[in-house]
C-alpha cells in the first residue's frame, strides 16, 4: 500500500512538473512558503497565529464531527474522540493541524504541494511518534485515486492561496464520503480584512511574512457557501474568528468580516 502511495506521489511529482497549469496550485505561492519551511514549527515564530489557531480549530473540527454523530459514543470524553475516522488535511504545510488531529485518534492524511514542507512535516511527526500519512500532491491528483475515501476534510488557511477555488472545492468534495464533513477556515474579502491581514499583520506588526496574502484571492462567505453548494456541500455553520494580537489567542465571534470558519456536509 505504502509502495503504491509512494509511486503515486512520485507520479504526481512528475505530473505536476509537466502540467502544473492544470492544478489549482500557484507556483508563486509555493516559492513563498518554501522560505517558511525552516521555522514552520517554531511556536512563536512567523507561524505564531497558525499555532495558536489550533486552540480554536481543533475543537471546531472535533465538536463538528461529534455533532454530526460520526463519533462513536464510547470514544466521547476520552483522549481519542476521533478514533477510526479518516481525515484529509489539504494544504497541511508542516502539519500544525494534522498532528493534533492525529493525537485525537484520527487516521490523518496530509497533502501539500510543497515538497520541502512535506519533508518538514514528515520529520516532525516521526520525532513525535505520530503516524501520519504525508503526501506531496495536489488535491486534484489526490481526488483521482481517493474517491469518497474520507470521513472528513480540513482545508484550513489554504483557500486564500488558491486561485481556482471551484476546482479545488469540487476535488475536495470528490474525496469526501457521503455525509462527510468539510471544515474550512479562510479570510473574508472585505476592506477591513485586507487592511488587518495585509497592512497590519504583514507590514506593521510583522506577524506573518510579507507578501503571504493577496487580497484578490480572499473570498466572501456567501460566495464560498454558493461554491460549496455547487459541489454538493451544504453549509452547517459559519463563525467569525477574531485574533487577539496581544494575547495571541483566537476567539469565535459573530462578526465574520475578517477571518471565518465554515463547516459543511456532503449531501448524497
Amino acid at each position, binding site marked *: 500500500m505504502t509502495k503504491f502511495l509512494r509511486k503515486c506521489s512520485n507520479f504526481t511529482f512528475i505530473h505536476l512538473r509537466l502540467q502544473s497549469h492544470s492544478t489549482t496550485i500557484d507556483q508563486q505561492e509555493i516559492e513563498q512558503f518554501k522560505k517558511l519551511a525552516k521555522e514552520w514549527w517554531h*511556536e512563536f515564530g512567523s507561524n505564531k497565529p497558525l499555532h495558536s489557531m*489550533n*486552540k480554536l480549530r481543533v475543537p471546531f473540527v*472535533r465538536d463538528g464531527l461529534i455533532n454530526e454523530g460520526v463519533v462513536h459514543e464510547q470514544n466521547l470524553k476520552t483522549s481519542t474522540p476521533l478514533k477510526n475516522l479518516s481525515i484529509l488535511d489539504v494544504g497541511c504545510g508542516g502539519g500544525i493541524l494534522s498532528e493534533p488531529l492525529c*493525537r485525537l485518534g484520527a487516521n490523518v492524511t496530509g497533502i501539500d504541494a510543497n515538497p520541502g514542507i512535506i519533508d518538514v512535516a514528515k520529520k516532525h511527526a516521526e520525532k513525535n511518534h505520530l503516524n501520519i500519512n504525508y503526501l506531496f500532491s495536489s488535491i486534484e491528483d489526490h481526488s483521482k485515486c481517493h474517491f469518497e475515501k474520507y470521513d472528513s476534510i480540513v482545508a484550513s488557511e489554504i483557500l486564500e492561496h488558491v486561485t481556482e477555488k471551484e476546482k479545488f472545492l469540487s476535488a475536495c468534495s470528490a474525496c469526501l464520503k457521503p455525509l462527510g464533513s468539510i471544515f474550512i477556515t479562510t479570510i473574508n474579502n472585505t476592506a477591513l480584512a485586507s487592511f488587518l491581514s495585509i497592512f497590519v499583520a504583514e507590514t506593521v506588526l510583522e506577524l506573518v511574512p510579507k507578501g503571504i496574502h493577496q487580497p484578490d484571492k480572499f473570498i466572501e462567505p456567501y460566495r464560498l457557501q454558493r461554491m460549496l453548494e455547487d459541489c454538493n456541500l451544504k453549509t452547517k455553520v459559519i463563525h467569525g474568528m477574531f485574533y487577539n494580537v496581544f494575547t495571541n489567542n483566537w476567539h469565535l465571534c459573530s462578526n465574520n468580516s475578517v477571518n471565518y470558519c465554515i463547516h459543511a456536509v456532503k449531501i448524497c
Partner: protein
Amino acid sequence: MLNNQILNKKGVCLLWKIKGKFHFQRFLSQNIDRHYDIIIAGGGMVGTTLACTLGKNSILKNKKILLLEAGKEKPWTLPEKYNNRVVSVNPGSQKLLSSINAWNFIEKNRVATVKQLQVWEALSDASITFEQPKNNEPISYIVENDLILAAVAEQAQSCPNLEIQYEAKVKNYQLPDFNADITQLKMENGQNFSCNLLLGCDGVNSTVRKCMHANYISWNYGQMGVVATLQLDQQPGFKNDVAWQRFLPNGPVALLPLTDELSSLVWSTTIQQAKELLELPEERFVEQLNKAIGGTFKKSSLVSQAINSFDNLLRALNCPSTNQATAPTICGMETNSRAAFPLGFGHSSQYIGKGVVLVGDAAHRIHPLAGQGVNLGFGDVNCLNEVLTKAVYSGGGLNDLSYLKEYESERQKHNLPMMIAVEGLHRLTTTTLAPIVLLRGLGLQFSNALVPLKKYLISQASI
C-alpha cells in the same frame, strides 16, 4: 565499552508498544528506566490530590502518571487523639475532594463544620461576624492534615494508571532545553525516569522551582505559629461550630472547632514569645492563652470612644452592629500537643516553564491567618486538571505551553489578590499605632455592617 560510547553518541531510541496503545520510549543513551507522561514530585496533601484527580480523569486515562514521595508509606489508622495540624477546607476544596470520592472517607472519620466566623480585635474591641448567606451552609470544614492525606492516598490506590513511589529521593531534575521536550529525573537510588510533564508539588522549599530558576519573592514574618489541641470549658448545650480569631498586637490567635469539647489552636506570634509558650508548663500555657483570648489590653481612650459612638450610630441606623464576642474559655489541653512552625510569605512569578508546572506551596506561601494556604493549592489542582483535560481533548501535548499559560494566568489572577489581601491584613493588624488601630476598628465595624461586602468576601474565600 567503545561500542557503548558510539551507541551513546548516536542516542539510539528504542520504541515498543504495549497493548498496542502506549508508546514507551527508551533512550538508551541516557539509560532511562521508565518513561511517564506525567511525574508529580511531592506526595503531600496537594500532590496526592493532584495525582488522584488526574488519575480519575477519563480523558487522561491512557496517560501514565508517577507520584514521587520522599517519606515512607504510612499505613493509616484513626488515632484516638486529634493531630495538632489541621486545615480549614473551604467549600470549593470540599467539592474537589468529593469529586474524587475522598470526602466520604473524611466524613466517615471525623470532620468539624464551621458555620460562623467571629473575628475581633484586642485593641479596639471591634468585631466582625461571617456567615454563609444561606443558613446552615458551612463556611468551612476543619480536618486534620493526616486525615486528608489518608483519604486521597486511599483513592489514589484505585487509579490503574497511577503509580506511587515512596521513599523516592530525587538527585536532580533535568528540565528540557530549547530543542528537547523530555524532562529527566535522576534518583538517589540510581534509577532514571523521564516524563513529558513534571508537576512540582514539593512545598515551600521546592527543588523543582529552584531548577526552573523561577523568580521567587519571599520573606519571613519573624513569627511562628503555635499549634495545640485544646479542651473547652463546657457549658450545657454548647455547640462548637464557630471559628474564633482575635487579632493581638503580636499576631492573630485562632480557635478552630474539632468537636463540642475540643478546639484546635493556631497562635501566630513572635518567635521569642512562641519559644516561651512552648516551654511553659501546660497549666500556665492555658492561662496565657485565656488571657490572649479573653483578656483586655491597654486601649487608647480615644479609640474606645470612637468605636463606641460608631457602634451607636450603626445601631441607630438599624445596621447589624457589633455583638460582643464571647469566646469559649479553655480549661486544658491535650498533653504534648504543642508545636510551632515558622511563618513566611512566598510568591513565584512563574508557575510554568518548559515541561514543568508548579502547584500549591511550591508556587505560593501565605500567612495562615485566613486559613487559605491549602485551599489555594486545591484551587490550583482544580484548574490544572481542567487545563490538561482541555489540552489533551484538543489534541495538544501535555506540555503545550499555550495551554499551560492558561493555568498560570488563571491561578495568578486568583492567588495574587488573595495573597495581597492576607498580607495587608497581617500588616494592618500587627500595628499598635493609635490612628491605625482606630481606622482598622472602624473598618471592621463598617465591613460588619455592610452585608454585600461580607457576602463578597465570603464568596471569594469559598472558591
